[in-house]
């Protein structure tokens, strides 16, 4: 099994404020890792470091064995292999749904316009939005927007996908559609790192659950270990609060 992502003693400081305190984390090929924890625990920061959206203060991040902090590394090439889905979708409002999906592969010369259109339509179909190809993003619901965002990432044929709270900004009735698409992806063997508050999803889909608090990994294990037999006190109280809610 090959290691896709490896973080070694990663630290992130904003001035004197340390938000990530020495995180070690490995994600293997085909693995689905769920990152849970209270807000401000540093989960999203760690996720955003994995494709260089956030810089590290110290430590190493290896993507397929390449240290992305090294100056000679072409970060654009690395990012092309990592799909990212944001909490607020971040669709490009100045182009159609198909335009959103085909922009990167055509601009980067990976596909011709026709190939990209074909591939984009296929991906939109796979997320259940074949009929929205020509729509403008502003006309879509939140759930539809997020599925377009997933299709946009998938059209680049990434080796791994990062999800930053993909359902947090959605109305409850939309959450299911998006999780459904993610579940399907996981089944197809996509390497995924998901920051989420959906404990049910984490329990069911993740191979491994990582609990963050105070900028550190407090506990890590299979969903059963983490949810059924939590050892860490903070994890126990976090789960209690979440499950009571």
């Amino acid at each position, binding site marked *: 099994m090959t290691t896709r992502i490896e973080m070694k003693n990663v630290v992130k400081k904003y001035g004197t404020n340390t938000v990530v305190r020495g995180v070690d984390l490995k994600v293997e090929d085909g693995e689905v890792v769920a990152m849970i924890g209270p807000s401000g625990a540093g989960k999203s920061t760690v996720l955003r470091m994995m494709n260089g959206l956030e810089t590290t203060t110290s430590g190493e991040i290896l993507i397929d064995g390449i240290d992305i902090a090294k100056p000679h590394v072409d970060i654009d090439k690395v990012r092309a292999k990592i799909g990212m889905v*944001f909490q607020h979708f*971040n669709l*490009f409002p100045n182009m159609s749904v198909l335009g959103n999906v085909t922009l990167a592969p055509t601009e980067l010369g990976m596909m011709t316009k026709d190939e990209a259109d074909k591939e984009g339509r296929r991906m939109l179909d796979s997320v259940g939005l074949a009929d929205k190809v020509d729509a403008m993003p502003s006309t879509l619901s939140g759930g539809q927007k997020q599925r377009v965002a997933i299709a*946009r*990432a998938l059209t680049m044929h990434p080796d791994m996908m990062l999800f930053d709270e993909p359902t947090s900004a959605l109305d409850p009735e939309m959450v299911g559609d998006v999780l459904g698409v993610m579940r399907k992806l996981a089944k197809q063997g996509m390497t995924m790192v998901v920051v989420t508050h959906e404990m049910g999803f984490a329990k069911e889909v993740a191979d491994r659950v990582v609990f963050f608090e105070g900028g550190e990994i407090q506990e890590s294990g299979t969903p059963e270990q983490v949810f059924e037999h939590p050892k860490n006190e903070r994890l126990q109280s976090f789960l209690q609060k979440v499950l009571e809610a």
Partner: protein
Amino acid sequence: MRRHWGIIGLVVALGLGIFSGQVAKPEPVHAAEKTYTIAMDTTFPPFEFADKNNKRVGIDIDLIEAIAKAEGFKVQLKATSFNGAVQELQANQVDGVMAGMSITPERKKVFAFSDPYYQSGVVMAVRKNGNITKLSQLRGKRVAVKTGTASADYANSIKKKYGFKTITFDDSNNVYQDVISGNSAACFEDKPVMQYAIATGLGLKLGNMKMAMANDYGIAVSKAEPALVKKINAGLKKVRKSGEYNKIVEKYLGNGSQADTDKKAKETNDSSSTFFGLLKSNRGALMAGLGETVQLTIVGILFATLVGILVGLLGVVPNKLAQGIATTFIYIFRGLPLMVLALFIYTGVPMVIGTKIPAFVAGIITLTLNEGAYTAAFVKGGIGAVDVGQMEAARSLGLPWTKAMRRVILPQGLKIMVPSFINQFIITLKDTSILSILGLMELTQTGKIIIARNMEGFKIWTMVALIYLIIITLLTWLSNWVQRRIQA
């Protein structure tokens, strides 16, 4: 990061290209039959003024043309303010100044002078029906003079003795109007000028004072052009000898009789002083001024927009040096008053670089820098107003910064900027009026000159204001139409 240097290089190269291209524009001065540019005052009748067809006439104009003809050279005359003319000569923007200019030791240090061509002196003028007629009555009062003239020097030399204050204006017309309106008690002026103005119906009369500071008018020439002084002196001798000189002076000052000066006044003044009469008789001049204003506006908007977008983009490149350049550019050129910038470029810079900058080019550079700085500021702001998530999403897909900027951020930023662009176009149009300080014959300068002749300030400024409003309305309609097309 390396990629961004490409953009910075491009921007800097383009910027330099624009400016070097403009500055290095060759001057077609050294032809076989040499053409000299002579700067003049706008209104200094009878030496220079506009007749009722807005043709510029006067003793200075006829005389220099006669001299040029006698000596076989050509002159190009340029109407600006007296002060502006002097500064332009200092900056070598023109070859000479002929504006009823007294020969003084101070001026002789800076310029070469021709032989005297007219003897004048300073007289006092007061309101026709006022009580004040003597110097001794000026205590505690205000006296109007024209900036930088011998009359101003005289007023300043005696103001302590007689206890009055002085106020300075750039145009003779403003000096006279200040006395007529009663704001100033008197004004000092060169005798022939005052005589002519009074004789053509101005509501002033000569004060009870002997002509002071008898002085000679001469043509000031750049010390770098000794050949021109020689030519002028030789030509002046010829036209005096041939009797042409006397003819010219008599043509303007007449034989001294009231009937004759009244006749002169009729030649100068508009046949009808109603609004529409004035509009009709000045239509040609106003349209020519409008044409110049429109040209300045279009070329100015074009360059300012180009430079503004480039500098604005520099300001958002993730590179400290680029951002520093953009911030400094905006800081300097947005901070400088437009008029200071215009004068600096037109009369300051040529002294250093040793090349003339044509007034139109100086005007365009001024607009480009000033309006460009404002444009850069809102371009930078407009891009900054696009949600950061857009850049993150685009970069996450592997798009390089330039591609993300061009395909995702700019199209959204431009939409935000459209109203600012429209606003800036309108401001640019209005700001061209400030360039009248460079003697550009645009709409405002045209208005000044017409009023200097016919004193119809209210009606002419109303016309000028209406013309500005009409073109601003047209520009706004055009911009709104474009805006609808973009945002549809």
